């Protein structure tokens, strides 16, 4: 029971962590050029293991555009229907850079702290005794 409860808490924490990083991840996918919605979703899934609910990403893209971080344009595609391409504005590039630097500093400092935890085998008997 204990391990199940911990497992659920761990999954919840991991979900919150992924959710918190989503905006940074979306901005990062557009760092190298313009992409349309489905390409952004696939990029998130392939490069970051962020299995994001599709219904979450499109509203965030709309907000980022409303905030002036993204620009968009409808482009005719070979598929037969136009696609809405997004790209970073100057302000969006600045925000992406700030977020990436903050993330980098934070993860590097935390990595030092968790290093001993990763090296040591967890003794299940000891955990049960606690």
């Amino acid at each position, binding site marked *: 029971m204990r391990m199940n409860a911990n497992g659920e808490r761990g999954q919840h924490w991991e979900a*919150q962590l992924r959710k918190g990083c989503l905006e940074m991840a979306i901005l990062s996918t557009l760092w190298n050029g313009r992409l349309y919605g489905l390409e952004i979703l696939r990029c998130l899934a392939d490069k970051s293991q962020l299995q994001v609910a*599709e*219904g979450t990403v499109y509203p965030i893209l709309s*907000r980022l555009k409303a905030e002036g971080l993204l620009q968009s344009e409808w482009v005719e595609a070979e598929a037969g*229907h136009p696609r*809405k391409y997004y790209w970073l504005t100057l302000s969006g590039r600045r925000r992406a850079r700030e977020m990436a630097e903050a993330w980098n500093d934070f993860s590097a400092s935390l990595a030092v702290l968790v290093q001993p935890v990763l090296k040591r085998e967890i003794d299940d008997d000891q955990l049960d005794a606690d």
Partner: protein
Amino acid sequence: MTNLTPTRNEQIEAYLAGLNEALQGMRREQREEILREIRTHILDSLPDNPQAVIEPVLRALGAPERLAEHYRTEFLLAQASHSFSPWLLLSTAWRWAHIGIRGFVVFLVAVFGYGAAVTFLISVLLKPFLPNQVGLWVGRGTLEFGTPGHRAGVHEVLGNSYIPVTMLLAFGAAVGTTHALRWLIRTRRRPAH
């Protein structure tokens, strides 16, 4: 273009009609832009096989009402982070409270802060009509604004200064709450750290 059987086409139209319905209240151009993009997403997500089922694609997008809820929240957050309107900030906090604990806490901050400002303001308006009943009352270990619960052993300390002091407190509570809400809404979008 992706080949669509009549059934699949009907399913797409039904989904988009539901989304359009759930987005009522938003500007028409915004709704049309959203519907156009979601339609494109569905068409792009469909496999080339015309017999392939559409349900997984629609399921991945979520129910139209849920998707519309996300759009409304994100649009409100975008507006609120640059707004000084208490009404917009309060309604954003209310909507946010529906989707998370932090939103609920933010909503409580909004209610408490703006509630305090309104209460101070009401007592200022009442003071000219009830000069001996409205004030800052001190005595026997109590400190009460407005009308005291019991009169015995308490006395009013602000006198003629009550109105300007309370006006200042009302203004401070409103401005402080507005800035706190704007900050809370803006920091929501930063990566978790």
